[in-house]
Protein backbone atom coordinates (compact mmCIF):
# COMPACT_ATOMS: atom_id res chain seq x y z
CA UNK A 1 0.00 0.00 0.00
CA UNK A 2 1.61 3.28 -1.08
CA UNK A 3 2.41 5.12 2.09
CA UNK A 4 1.36 8.68 2.75
CA UNK A 5 4.38 10.90 3.33
CA UNK A 6 5.06 11.65 6.94
CA UNK A 7 4.17 15.09 8.22
CA UNK A 8 7.82 16.00 8.60
CA UNK A 9 8.47 15.19 4.97
CA UNK A 10 5.49 17.19 3.83
CA UNK A 11 6.60 20.32 5.69
CA UNK A 12 10.37 20.10 5.40
CA UNK A 13 10.68 19.13 1.76
CA UNK A 14 8.86 22.13 0.28
CA UNK A 15 10.62 24.54 2.62
CA UNK A 16 14.03 23.13 1.78
CA UNK A 17 13.09 23.11 -1.87
CA UNK A 18 12.05 26.78 -1.74
CA UNK A 19 15.27 27.68 0.01
CA UNK A 20 17.25 25.83 -2.61
CA UNK A 21 15.39 27.57 -5.43
CA UNK A 22 15.97 31.00 -3.93
CA UNK A 23 19.67 30.29 -3.47
CA UNK A 24 19.99 28.93 -6.98
CA UNK A 25 18.19 32.00 -8.29
CA UNK A 26 20.50 34.31 -6.37
CA UNK A 27 23.53 32.47 -7.70
CA UNK A 28 22.21 32.49 -11.23
CA UNK A 29 22.05 36.26 -11.25
CA UNK A 30 25.23 37.05 -9.38
CA UNK A 31 27.22 34.58 -11.47
CA UNK A 32 25.69 36.07 -14.58
CA UNK A 33 24.25 32.77 -15.77
CA UNK A 34 21.15 34.83 -16.40
CA UNK A 35 21.19 38.36 -17.68
CA UNK A 36 20.69 40.63 -14.66
CA UNK A 37 18.54 42.84 -16.86
CA UNK A 38 15.99 40.05 -16.99
CA UNK A 39 15.82 38.79 -13.48
CA UNK A 40 16.61 40.50 -10.24
CA UNK A 41 18.54 38.61 -7.61
CA UNK A 42 16.16 37.91 -4.76
CA UNK A 43 18.42 39.37 -2.12
CA UNK A 44 18.97 42.56 -4.13
CA UNK A 45 15.29 42.93 -4.72
CA UNK A 46 14.64 42.45 -1.02
CA UNK A 47 17.23 45.08 -0.22
CA UNK A 48 15.62 47.52 -2.62
CA UNK A 49 12.19 46.66 -1.25
CA UNK A 50 13.37 47.77 2.15
CA UNK A 51 15.60 50.69 1.17
CA UNK A 52 13.07 52.29 -1.14
CA UNK A 53 10.34 51.70 1.36
CA UNK A 54 9.68 55.40 1.85
CA UNK A 55 9.26 55.87 -1.89
CA UNK A 56 7.16 52.76 -2.27
CA UNK A 57 4.99 53.36 0.77
CA UNK A 58 2.40 55.74 -0.73
CA UNK A 59 1.97 53.36 -3.65
CA UNK A 60 1.72 50.32 -1.42
CA UNK A 61 -0.93 52.10 0.59
CA UNK A 62 -2.74 53.22 -2.55
CA UNK A 63 -2.99 49.66 -3.78
CA UNK A 64 -4.05 48.39 -0.39
CA UNK A 65 -6.77 51.03 0.02
CA UNK A 66 -8.07 50.47 -3.48
CA UNK A 67 -8.21 46.70 -3.03
CA UNK A 68 -9.88 46.91 0.34
CA UNK A 69 -12.48 49.42 -0.78
CA UNK A 70 -13.21 47.48 -3.94
CA UNK A 71 -13.61 44.25 -2.03
CA UNK A 72 -15.88 45.71 0.62
CA UNK A 73 -18.11 47.49 -1.88
CA UNK A 74 -18.43 44.61 -4.29
CA UNK A 75 -18.98 42.06 -1.52
CA UNK A 76 -21.72 44.06 0.15
CA UNK A 77 -23.31 45.01 -3.16
CA UNK A 78 -22.90 41.53 -4.56
CA UNK A 79 -24.41 39.80 -1.55
CA UNK A 80 -27.32 42.24 -1.49
CA UNK A 81 -28.07 41.73 -5.15
CA UNK A 82 -27.72 37.98 -4.74
CA UNK A 83 -30.22 38.02 -1.89
CA UNK A 84 -32.59 40.17 -3.90
CA UNK A 85 -32.40 37.82 -6.85
CA UNK A 86 -33.07 34.89 -4.56
CA UNK A 87 -36.35 36.29 -3.37
CA UNK A 88 -37.72 37.95 -6.50
CA UNK A 89 -38.42 35.17 -8.97
CA UNK A 90 -39.34 37.02 -12.17
CA UNK A 91 -36.44 39.43 -11.76
CA UNK A 92 -34.10 36.51 -11.32
CA UNK A 93 -35.41 34.61 -14.32
CA UNK A 94 -34.94 37.65 -16.49
CA UNK A 95 -31.60 38.82 -15.19
CA UNK A 96 -29.74 35.62 -14.29
CA UNK A 97 -28.67 34.63 -17.82
CA UNK A 98 -27.42 38.15 -18.43
CA UNK A 99 -25.39 37.89 -15.24
CA UNK A 100 -23.89 34.62 -16.35
CA UNK A 101 -23.14 36.17 -19.72
CA UNK A 102 -21.47 39.15 -18.06
CA UNK A 103 -19.48 36.76 -15.95
CA UNK A 104 -18.19 35.04 -19.08
CA UNK A 105 -17.23 38.27 -20.82
CA UNK A 106 -13.54 39.10 -20.75
CA UNK A 107 -14.20 42.19 -18.66
CA UNK A 108 -10.51 42.93 -18.36
CA UNK A 109 -10.68 44.21 -21.90
CA UNK A 110 -12.77 47.12 -20.67
CA UNK A 111 -10.06 48.67 -18.52
CA UNK A 112 -9.26 51.41 -21.07
CA UNK A 113 -12.98 52.13 -21.41
CA UNK A 114 -13.26 53.00 -17.75
CA UNK A 115 -10.38 55.43 -18.24
CA UNK A 116 -12.21 57.03 -21.16
CA UNK A 117 -15.30 57.37 -19.03
CA UNK A 118 -13.96 58.41 -15.69
CA UNK A 119 -10.54 59.73 -16.44
CA UNK A 120 -7.20 58.90 -14.91
CA UNK A 121 -8.16 58.82 -11.27
CA UNK A 122 -8.98 56.64 -8.33
CA UNK A 123 -12.63 56.53 -9.25
CA UNK A 124 -12.05 54.82 -12.58
CA UNK A 125 -9.78 52.29 -10.89
CA UNK A 126 -12.30 51.54 -8.17
CA UNK A 127 -15.20 51.24 -10.56
CA UNK A 128 -13.30 48.95 -12.91
CA UNK A 129 -12.06 46.66 -10.17
CA UNK A 130 -15.50 46.66 -8.57
CA UNK A 131 -17.10 45.81 -11.89
CA UNK A 132 -14.86 42.77 -12.24
CA UNK A 133 -15.15 41.53 -8.67
CA UNK A 134 -18.89 42.04 -8.43
CA UNK A 135 -20.31 39.29 -10.64
CA UNK A 136 -18.81 36.15 -9.11
CA UNK A 137 -19.98 37.32 -5.70
CA UNK A 138 -23.55 37.80 -6.90
CA UNK A 139 -23.60 34.41 -8.59
CA UNK A 140 -22.04 32.65 -5.61
CA UNK A 141 -24.47 34.27 -3.16
CA UNK A 142 -27.41 33.28 -5.31
CA UNK A 143 -26.14 29.73 -5.70
CA UNK A 144 -25.50 29.48 -1.99
CA UNK A 145 -28.93 30.68 -0.98
CA UNK A 146 -30.57 28.26 -3.37
CA UNK A 147 -28.50 25.34 -2.15
CA UNK A 148 -30.49 24.82 1.03
CA UNK A 149 -31.54 21.25 1.57
CA UNK A 150 -35.17 21.07 0.38
CA UNK A 151 -36.05 18.68 3.19
CA UNK A 152 -34.98 21.24 5.77
CA UNK A 153 -37.15 23.84 4.03
CA UNK A 154 -40.09 21.48 4.19
CA UNK A 155 -39.44 21.08 7.88
CA UNK A 156 -39.42 24.85 8.38
CA UNK A 157 -42.67 25.23 6.51
CA UNK A 158 -44.26 22.55 8.63
CA UNK A 159 -43.18 24.52 11.69
CA UNK A 160 -44.70 27.64 10.07
CA UNK A 161 -41.49 29.59 10.25
CA UNK A 162 -41.64 33.12 8.84
CA UNK A 163 -39.70 33.92 5.66
CA UNK A 164 -37.33 36.10 7.61
CA UNK A 165 -36.63 33.31 10.10
CA UNK A 166 -36.05 30.87 7.27
CA UNK A 167 -33.62 33.27 5.66
CA UNK A 168 -31.52 34.19 8.67
CA UNK A 169 -31.56 30.88 10.48
CA UNK A 170 -31.53 28.35 7.69
CA UNK A 171 -30.72 29.67 4.21
CA UNK A 172 -27.87 31.94 5.17
CA UNK A 173 -25.91 29.42 7.29
CA UNK A 174 -26.29 26.78 4.56
CA UNK A 175 -25.10 29.33 2.03
CA UNK A 176 -21.88 30.16 3.85
CA UNK A 177 -19.53 27.76 2.00
CA UNK A 178 -20.61 28.92 -1.45
CA UNK A 179 -20.67 32.58 -0.46
CA UNK A 180 -17.20 32.25 1.01
CA UNK A 181 -15.86 30.70 -2.17
CA UNK A 182 -17.43 33.58 -4.06
CA UNK A 183 -15.69 36.02 -1.73
CA UNK A 184 -12.37 34.30 -2.31
CA UNK A 185 -12.78 34.71 -6.04
CA UNK A 186 -13.97 38.27 -5.49
CA UNK A 187 -10.90 39.11 -3.46
CA UNK A 188 -8.58 37.72 -6.11
CA UNK A 189 -10.42 39.69 -8.77
CA UNK A 190 -10.38 42.86 -6.69
CA UNK A 191 -6.60 42.75 -6.55
CA UNK A 192 -6.41 41.81 -10.23
CA UNK A 193 -8.73 44.65 -11.18
CA UNK A 194 -6.79 47.18 -9.12
CA UNK A 195 -3.43 46.14 -10.55
CA UNK A 196 -4.69 46.13 -14.12
CA UNK A 197 -6.25 49.55 -13.72
CA UNK A 198 -3.00 50.79 -12.23
CA UNK A 199 -1.21 49.45 -15.31
CA UNK A 200 -3.59 51.32 -17.54
CA UNK A 201 -3.87 54.61 -15.66
CA UNK A 202 -0.16 54.68 -14.72
CA UNK A 203 -0.80 57.17 -11.99
CA UNK A 204 -0.22 55.57 -8.63
CA UNK A 205 -0.09 52.24 -6.92
CA UNK A 206 2.20 49.23 -7.19
CA UNK A 207 0.95 48.47 -10.71
CA UNK A 208 2.17 51.86 -11.77
CA UNK A 209 5.56 51.25 -10.12
CA UNK A 210 5.93 47.95 -11.97
CA UNK A 211 5.21 49.52 -15.35
CA UNK A 212 7.40 52.52 -14.55
CA UNK A 213 10.28 50.33 -13.40
CA UNK A 214 10.01 48.03 -16.41
CA UNK A 215 10.16 50.91 -18.87
CA UNK A 216 13.25 52.25 -17.08
CA UNK A 217 14.73 48.76 -16.88
CA UNK A 218 15.01 49.14 -13.09
CA UNK A 219 14.63 45.44 -12.60
CA UNK A 220 15.42 45.45 -8.90
CA UNK A 221 12.69 47.98 -8.23
CA UNK A 222 10.31 46.00 -10.40
CA UNK A 223 10.91 42.82 -8.45
CA UNK A 224 10.67 44.68 -5.18
CA UNK A 225 7.23 45.94 -6.23
CA UNK A 226 6.28 42.43 -7.39
CA UNK A 227 7.33 41.15 -3.99
CA UNK A 228 5.07 43.65 -2.29
CA UNK A 229 2.18 42.79 -4.58
CA UNK A 230 2.61 39.10 -3.79
CA UNK A 231 2.71 39.84 -0.09
CA UNK A 232 -0.43 41.95 -0.25
CA UNK A 233 -2.18 39.31 -2.34
CA UNK A 234 -1.30 36.55 0.10
CA UNK A 235 -2.29 38.61 3.14
CA UNK A 236 -5.65 39.62 1.73
CA UNK A 237 -6.48 36.10 0.62
CA UNK A 238 -5.37 34.83 4.00
CA UNK A 239 -7.68 37.36 5.63
CA UNK A 240 -10.63 35.97 3.68
CA UNK A 241 -9.62 32.45 4.71
CA UNK A 242 -9.49 33.60 8.32
CA UNK A 243 -12.92 35.17 7.98
CA UNK A 244 -14.24 31.89 6.61
CA UNK A 245 -12.69 29.96 9.45
CA UNK A 246 -14.15 32.30 12.07
CA UNK A 247 -17.61 32.24 10.59
CA UNK A 248 -17.64 28.46 10.29
CA UNK A 249 -16.38 28.15 13.83
CA UNK A 250 -19.09 30.50 15.07
CA UNK A 251 -21.67 28.44 13.22
CA UNK A 252 -20.24 25.33 14.81
CA UNK A 253 -19.35 23.66 11.54
CA UNK A 254 -15.98 22.05 10.99
CA UNK A 255 -13.61 23.86 8.65
CA UNK A 256 -14.89 22.86 5.26
CA UNK A 257 -12.10 24.05 3.03
CA UNK A 258 -8.59 25.34 3.38
CA UNK A 259 -7.56 26.84 0.11
CA UNK A 260 -10.30 26.69 -2.45
CA UNK A 261 -9.61 24.62 -5.50
CA UNK A 262 -7.36 26.87 -7.52
CA UNK A 263 -9.40 25.97 -10.57
CA UNK A 264 -12.25 28.06 -9.24
CA UNK A 265 -10.54 31.39 -9.78
CA UNK A 266 -12.53 32.83 -12.60
CA UNK A 267 -12.30 35.64 -15.06
Amino acid at each position, binding site marked *: *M*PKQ*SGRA*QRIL*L*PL*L*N*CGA*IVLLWQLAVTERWINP*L*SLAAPFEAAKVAVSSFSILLPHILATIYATLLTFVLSSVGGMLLGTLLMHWRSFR*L*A*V*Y*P*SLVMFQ*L*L*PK*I*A*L*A*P*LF*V*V*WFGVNIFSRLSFAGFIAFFPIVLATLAGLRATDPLVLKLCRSMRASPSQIFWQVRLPYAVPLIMSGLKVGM*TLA*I*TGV*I*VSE*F*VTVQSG*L*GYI*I*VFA*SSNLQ*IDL*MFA*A*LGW*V*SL*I*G*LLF*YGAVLLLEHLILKWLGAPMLAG*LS*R*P*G*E*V*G*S
Partner: protein
Amino acid sequence: MSAEAFSAAISPEARLEGWRRFAGEAALPAGFILICLVALEILARVLAAPEVLFPSPSRVLTALVLNASVLSYHAALTMSQVLAALVLSLVIGVAIAMVFTLSRVINDMFAPLFVVLQIVPKIALAPIFVVWFGPGSLSHLGFAVCLSFFPILAGARAGFEETSAEAVRLCRALRAGRWQTLIHVKLPMALPQLSVGAKVSTTLCIIGVVLGEFVSAKAGIGWYIVQAAALSQTANILAALVVLSAFGLLIYGAVAAGEIAVRRRMFG
Protein backbone atom coordinates in the same frame (compact mmCIF):
# COMPACT_ATOMS: atom_id res chain seq x y z
CA MET B 1 -30.30 4.17 -17.99
CA SER B 2 -32.49 1.34 -19.34
CA ALA B 3 -32.85 0.84 -23.07
CA GLU B 4 -36.47 2.00 -22.98
CA ALA B 5 -35.70 5.20 -21.10
CA PHE B 6 -32.85 5.95 -23.46
CA SER B 7 -34.94 5.61 -26.61
CA ALA B 8 -37.76 7.57 -25.00
CA ALA B 9 -35.37 10.42 -24.36
CA ILE B 10 -34.47 10.77 -28.01
CA SER B 11 -37.91 10.18 -29.51
CA PRO B 12 -39.30 12.93 -31.75
CA GLU B 13 -41.91 13.91 -29.16
CA ALA B 14 -39.31 14.24 -26.46
CA ARG B 15 -37.13 16.32 -28.78
CA LEU B 16 -39.97 18.69 -29.56
CA GLU B 17 -40.76 19.01 -25.89
CA GLY B 18 -37.11 19.77 -25.22
CA TRP B 19 -37.04 22.52 -27.84
CA ARG B 20 -40.26 23.97 -26.50
CA ARG B 21 -38.85 24.16 -23.02
CA PHE B 22 -35.59 25.65 -24.27
CA ALA B 23 -37.52 28.31 -26.23
CA GLY B 24 -39.59 29.09 -23.18
CA GLU B 25 -36.61 29.36 -20.91
CA ALA B 26 -34.63 31.38 -23.44
CA ALA B 27 -37.53 33.68 -24.25
CA LEU B 28 -37.66 35.56 -20.99
CA PRO B 29 -33.99 36.48 -20.73
CA ALA B 30 -33.72 37.06 -24.49
CA GLY B 31 -36.74 39.32 -24.25
CA PHE B 32 -35.19 41.10 -21.32
CA ILE B 33 -31.96 41.71 -23.24
CA LEU B 34 -33.92 42.96 -26.22
CA ILE B 35 -35.95 45.30 -24.03
CA CYS B 36 -32.76 46.54 -22.40
CA LEU B 37 -31.18 47.23 -25.75
CA VAL B 38 -34.24 49.10 -26.97
CA ALA B 39 -34.43 51.04 -23.71
CA LEU B 40 -30.74 51.93 -23.95
CA GLU B 41 -31.28 53.05 -27.53
CA ILE B 42 -34.17 55.29 -26.56
CA LEU B 43 -32.28 56.60 -23.54
CA ALA B 44 -29.22 57.41 -25.63
CA ARG B 45 -31.25 59.37 -28.12
CA VAL B 46 -33.36 61.19 -25.56
CA LEU B 47 -30.43 62.14 -23.37
CA ALA B 48 -28.36 63.00 -26.41
CA ALA B 49 -25.33 62.09 -24.34
CA PRO B 50 -21.97 62.50 -26.02
CA GLU B 51 -20.99 59.39 -27.88
CA VAL B 52 -17.88 59.16 -25.78
CA LEU B 53 -19.89 58.46 -22.68
CA PHE B 54 -22.87 56.59 -23.92
CA PRO B 55 -23.02 55.31 -27.47
CA SER B 56 -26.40 53.94 -28.38
CA PRO B 57 -26.57 50.28 -29.33
CA SER B 58 -27.18 51.25 -32.93
CA ARG B 59 -23.95 53.26 -32.96
CA VAL B 60 -22.05 50.27 -31.61
CA LEU B 61 -23.63 48.10 -34.26
CA THR B 62 -22.61 50.58 -36.93
CA ALA B 63 -19.07 50.67 -35.62
CA LEU B 64 -19.08 46.90 -35.65
CA VAL B 65 -20.17 46.67 -39.24
CA LEU B 66 -17.94 49.47 -40.51
CA ASN B 67 -14.82 48.04 -38.90
CA ALA B 68 -15.69 44.41 -39.44
CA SER B 69 -12.63 43.49 -41.46
CA VAL B 70 -10.19 45.33 -39.19
CA LEU B 71 -11.78 43.86 -36.10
CA SER B 72 -11.76 40.35 -37.54
CA TYR B 73 -8.09 40.68 -38.40
CA HIS B 74 -7.11 41.74 -34.89
CA ALA B 75 -9.49 39.26 -33.28
CA ALA B 76 -8.03 36.41 -35.32
CA LEU B 77 -4.56 37.44 -34.24
CA THR B 78 -5.51 37.53 -30.60
CA MET B 79 -7.50 34.31 -30.73
CA SER B 80 -4.73 32.35 -32.40
CA GLN B 81 -2.50 33.32 -29.49
CA VAL B 82 -5.26 32.33 -27.07
CA LEU B 83 -5.57 28.91 -28.68
CA ALA B 84 -1.82 28.40 -28.66
CA ALA B 85 -1.73 29.40 -24.99
CA LEU B 86 -4.57 27.02 -24.18
CA VAL B 87 -2.86 24.07 -25.86
CA LEU B 88 0.43 24.85 -24.14
CA SER B 89 -1.27 25.18 -20.75
CA LEU B 90 -2.97 21.83 -21.24
CA VAL B 91 0.29 20.12 -22.09
CA ILE B 92 2.28 21.74 -19.29
CA GLY B 93 -0.47 21.41 -16.70
CA VAL B 94 -1.15 17.75 -17.40
CA ALA B 95 2.55 16.91 -17.63
CA ILE B 96 3.32 18.48 -14.25
CA ALA B 97 0.29 16.77 -12.69
CA MET B 98 1.51 13.45 -14.04
CA VAL B 99 4.98 14.01 -12.58
CA PHE B 100 3.40 14.86 -9.23
CA THR B 101 1.39 11.65 -9.31
CA LEU B 102 4.33 9.47 -10.30
CA SER B 103 6.75 10.76 -7.70
CA ARG B 104 5.69 11.40 -4.14
CA VAL B 105 8.95 13.18 -3.35
CA ILE B 106 8.63 15.68 -6.19
CA ASN B 107 5.00 16.16 -5.23
CA ASP B 108 5.92 17.02 -1.66
CA MET B 109 8.71 19.34 -2.78
CA PHE B 110 6.82 21.39 -5.35
CA ALA B 111 3.09 21.06 -4.83
CA PRO B 112 2.83 23.53 -1.91
CA LEU B 113 4.86 25.97 -3.97
CA PHE B 114 2.29 25.80 -6.74
CA VAL B 115 -0.54 26.29 -4.28
CA VAL B 116 1.06 29.51 -3.05
CA LEU B 117 1.83 30.65 -6.60
CA GLN B 118 -1.83 30.10 -7.40
CA ILE B 119 -2.84 32.81 -4.92
CA VAL B 120 -0.18 35.34 -5.76
CA PRO B 121 -1.57 38.00 -8.14
CA LYS B 122 0.26 36.79 -11.21
CA ILE B 123 -1.50 39.47 -13.19
CA ALA B 124 1.21 41.83 -12.04
CA LEU B 125 3.74 39.80 -14.02
CA ALA B 126 2.60 41.09 -17.41
CA PRO B 127 5.39 43.67 -17.76
CA ILE B 128 8.10 41.19 -16.75
CA PHE B 129 7.18 38.98 -19.70
CA VAL B 130 7.74 41.97 -21.95
CA VAL B 131 11.17 42.46 -20.38
CA TRP B 132 11.96 38.79 -20.97
CA PHE B 133 10.51 38.22 -24.41
CA GLY B 134 10.28 41.63 -25.95
CA PRO B 135 7.15 43.41 -27.13
CA GLY B 136 5.81 40.63 -29.32
CA SER B 137 3.30 37.84 -29.23
CA LEU B 138 5.76 35.52 -27.48
CA SER B 139 5.49 37.61 -24.31
CA HIS B 140 1.67 37.52 -24.51
CA LEU B 141 1.80 33.77 -24.99
CA GLY B 142 4.15 33.27 -22.08
CA PHE B 143 2.09 35.47 -19.78
CA ALA B 144 -1.17 33.78 -20.76
CA VAL B 145 0.31 30.32 -20.17
CA CYS B 146 1.70 31.46 -16.83
CA LEU B 147 -1.78 32.56 -15.78
CA SER B 148 -3.74 29.69 -17.17
CA PHE B 149 -1.88 26.46 -16.57
CA PHE B 150 -2.71 26.53 -12.85
CA PRO B 151 -6.39 25.57 -13.17
CA ILE B 152 -5.37 22.74 -15.49
CA LEU B 153 -2.73 21.55 -13.07
CA ALA B 154 -5.23 21.72 -10.23
CA GLY B 155 -7.93 19.95 -12.23
CA ALA B 156 -5.61 17.20 -13.37
CA ARG B 157 -4.23 16.66 -9.87
CA ALA B 158 -7.70 16.59 -8.38
CA GLY B 159 -8.80 14.13 -11.04
CA PHE B 160 -5.82 11.84 -10.42
CA GLU B 161 -6.22 11.93 -6.68
CA GLU B 162 -9.93 11.36 -6.77
CA THR B 163 -9.70 8.22 -8.83
CA SER B 164 -11.87 5.73 -7.05
CA ALA B 165 -10.01 3.77 -4.41
CA GLU B 166 -11.52 0.57 -5.78
CA ALA B 167 -10.06 1.15 -9.22
CA VAL B 168 -6.62 1.82 -7.73
CA ARG B 169 -6.92 -1.30 -5.61
CA LEU B 170 -7.79 -3.30 -8.71
CA CYS B 171 -4.64 -2.03 -10.40
CA ARG B 172 -2.55 -3.01 -7.40
CA ALA B 173 -4.09 -6.47 -7.39
CA LEU B 174 -3.21 -6.80 -11.07
CA ARG B 175 0.34 -5.66 -10.30
CA ALA B 176 0.09 -2.64 -12.54
CA GLY B 177 3.03 -0.24 -12.32
CA ARG B 178 2.61 3.43 -11.41
CA TRP B 179 2.85 4.51 -15.02
CA GLN B 180 0.30 1.86 -16.13
CA THR B 181 -2.13 2.89 -13.41
CA LEU B 182 -1.75 6.50 -14.46
CA ILE B 183 -2.29 5.97 -18.16
CA HIS B 184 -4.94 3.25 -18.08
CA VAL B 185 -7.05 4.39 -15.18
CA LYS B 186 -6.21 7.72 -13.60
CA LEU B 187 -5.96 9.73 -16.79
CA PRO B 188 -9.37 8.72 -18.20
CA MET B 189 -10.95 9.17 -14.79
CA ALA B 190 -9.44 12.64 -14.49
CA LEU B 191 -10.99 13.94 -17.69
CA PRO B 192 -14.13 15.41 -16.07
CA GLN B 193 -12.10 17.42 -13.55
CA LEU B 194 -9.66 18.35 -16.27
CA SER B 195 -12.49 19.78 -18.38
CA VAL B 196 -13.55 22.03 -15.53
CA GLY B 197 -9.99 23.30 -15.27
CA ALA B 198 -9.80 23.73 -19.04
CA LYS B 199 -12.85 25.96 -19.08
CA VAL B 200 -11.42 28.23 -16.41
CA SER B 201 -8.12 28.17 -18.24
CA THR B 202 -9.75 29.36 -21.46
CA THR B 203 -11.03 32.48 -19.74
CA LEU B 204 -7.60 33.13 -18.23
CA CYS B 205 -5.88 32.66 -21.60
CA ILE B 206 -8.08 35.37 -23.08
CA ILE B 207 -7.37 37.68 -20.17
CA GLY B 208 -3.66 36.99 -20.38
CA VAL B 209 -3.31 37.68 -24.08
CA VAL B 210 -5.50 40.77 -24.03
CA LEU B 211 -3.73 42.22 -21.00
CA GLY B 212 -0.40 41.45 -22.63
CA GLU B 213 -1.58 43.41 -25.62
CA PHE B 214 -2.57 46.30 -23.38
CA VAL B 215 0.91 46.46 -21.93
CA SER B 216 2.74 46.20 -25.20
CA ALA B 217 1.70 45.24 -28.68
CA LYS B 218 1.46 46.35 -32.25
CA ALA B 219 -1.66 44.45 -33.17
CA GLY B 220 -4.47 42.41 -31.71
CA ILE B 221 -7.77 43.23 -30.10
CA GLY B 222 -6.13 44.50 -26.92
CA TRP B 223 -3.97 46.89 -28.92
CA TYR B 224 -7.04 47.97 -30.93
CA ILE B 225 -8.92 48.80 -27.74
CA VAL B 226 -6.02 50.83 -26.36
CA GLN B 227 -5.81 52.79 -29.61
CA ALA B 228 -9.55 53.36 -29.66
CA ALA B 229 -9.42 54.51 -26.04
CA ALA B 230 -6.68 57.01 -26.85
CA LEU B 231 -9.04 58.47 -29.43
CA SER B 232 -12.02 58.21 -27.05
CA GLN B 233 -13.87 56.07 -29.56
CA THR B 234 -16.18 54.38 -27.10
CA ALA B 235 -18.35 52.81 -29.77
CA ASN B 236 -15.31 51.16 -31.30
CA ILE B 237 -14.19 49.86 -27.93
CA LEU B 238 -17.58 48.30 -27.32
CA ALA B 239 -17.62 46.87 -30.82
CA ALA B 240 -14.21 45.30 -30.16
CA LEU B 241 -15.54 43.88 -26.90
CA VAL B 242 -18.47 42.32 -28.73
CA VAL B 243 -16.12 40.66 -31.21
CA LEU B 244 -13.79 39.52 -28.44
CA SER B 245 -16.68 38.08 -26.46
CA ALA B 246 -18.09 36.32 -29.50
CA PHE B 247 -14.77 34.63 -30.23
CA GLY B 248 -14.26 33.91 -26.55
CA LEU B 249 -17.65 32.25 -26.26
CA LEU B 250 -16.87 30.23 -29.37
CA ILE B 251 -13.69 28.82 -27.88
CA TYR B 252 -15.33 28.28 -24.51
CA GLY B 253 -18.23 26.54 -26.24
CA ALA B 254 -15.81 24.37 -28.19
CA VAL B 255 -14.09 23.31 -24.98
CA ALA B 256 -17.45 22.61 -23.33
CA ALA B 257 -18.61 20.64 -26.37
CA GLY B 258 -15.37 18.70 -26.32
CA GLU B 259 -16.00 17.88 -22.69
CA ILE B 260 -19.49 16.59 -23.42
CA ALA B 261 -18.24 14.53 -26.36
CA VAL B 262 -15.49 12.94 -24.30
CA ARG B 263 -17.86 12.28 -21.44
CA ARG B 264 -20.37 10.64 -23.69
CA ARG B 265 -17.79 8.51 -25.42
CA MET B 266 -16.13 7.40 -22.26
CA PHE B 267 -18.83 7.13 -19.69
CA GLY B 268 -21.96 6.85 -21.76
